[in-house]
């Protein structure tokens, strides 16, 4: 091969979009389910919520009585029902991925719709919970350390539930198997964060 042809072939190889697509540029992230870019976001969520949970624990040590009094005013039943709802929603989302991989797009969409509907129920119950706190005179304006962290952590999580429903809607519309894995990965992490948050904020005293 002449030098010119070799250089031309090298350029062609470098610029070929198919070759570029096949390169494992994501490293460790490519081992996770769904698109690696979603995992860049999700890993930051693990970091942020991890820090928030540790701050909650540290504040609990500093003000034990404030935390005991605050927890006594929480609605454990409502939070438990919300846990069941999110777990069931995650079950629908996981089934949707399995069903989509068998080629049944219609059923996968129904299951995603079920997951989104349950997410909406979670939001409604959370709003009821906040309303009950407001009726007791507990709001962000007059919150102590416990309720400041309670509103911050559960409110931040609630924003993720809302975003998760939007993401599930998008992947239900653009319903490739890979998109479903990406969208449901976000939903499962939101579910996992609640599973951890529930005992930390509501149960362990």
């Amino acid at each position: 091969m002449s030098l010119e042809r070799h250089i031309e072939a090298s350029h062609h190889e470098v610029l070929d979009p198919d070759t570029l697509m096949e390169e494992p540029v994501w490293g460790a992230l490519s081992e996770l389910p769904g698109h690696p870019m979603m995992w860049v976001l999700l890993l930051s969520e693990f970091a942020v919520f991890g820090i928030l949970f540790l701050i909650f624990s540290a504040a609990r040590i500093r003000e034990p009585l404030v935390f005991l009094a605050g927890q006594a005013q929480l609605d454990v039943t409502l939070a438990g029902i919300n846990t069941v709802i999110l777990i069931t929603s995650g079950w629908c989302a996981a089934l949707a991925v399995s069903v989509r991989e068998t080629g049944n797009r219609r059923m996968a969409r129904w299951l995603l719709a079920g997951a989104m509907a349950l997410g909406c129920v979670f939001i409604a119950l959370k709003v009821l919970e906040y309303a009950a706190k407001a009726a007791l005179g507990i709001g962000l304006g007059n919150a102590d350390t416990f309720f400041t962290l309670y509103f911050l952590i559960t409110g931040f999580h609630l924003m993720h539930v809302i975003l998760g429903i939007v993401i599930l809607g998008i992947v239900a519309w653009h319903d490739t198997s890979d998109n479903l894995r990406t969208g449901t990965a976000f939903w499962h992490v939101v579910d996992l964060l609640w599973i951890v948050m529930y005992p930390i904020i509501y149960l362990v005293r």
Partner: protein
Amino acid sequence: MQRIMRGHITQTWIILLVLTMLTMGAGYRSSLGLVGDAAIMIITLIKGRQLLVHFLEIRRSRFGWLFLFSLWLVIVSVANWGAANMVHFLVR
């Protein structure tokens, strides 16, 4: 569909529901003590691990993602258990 409904995803969902029911009752008590709180956090670790493996499908890999996420669960759970039980001793 029936095969999937009977598969590991539904089995995981049932396990998660049962474990959630077990912990819900604990919330009505003022304090469970060291062992009770530890039991709650261990159940939470089991739930988290079930979700990671069967819903998220995080597998054992050379980069150790399952280990890292499990470690995250352990750190936040142990920190909370320790903090809550320090409260328990101080109040007594």
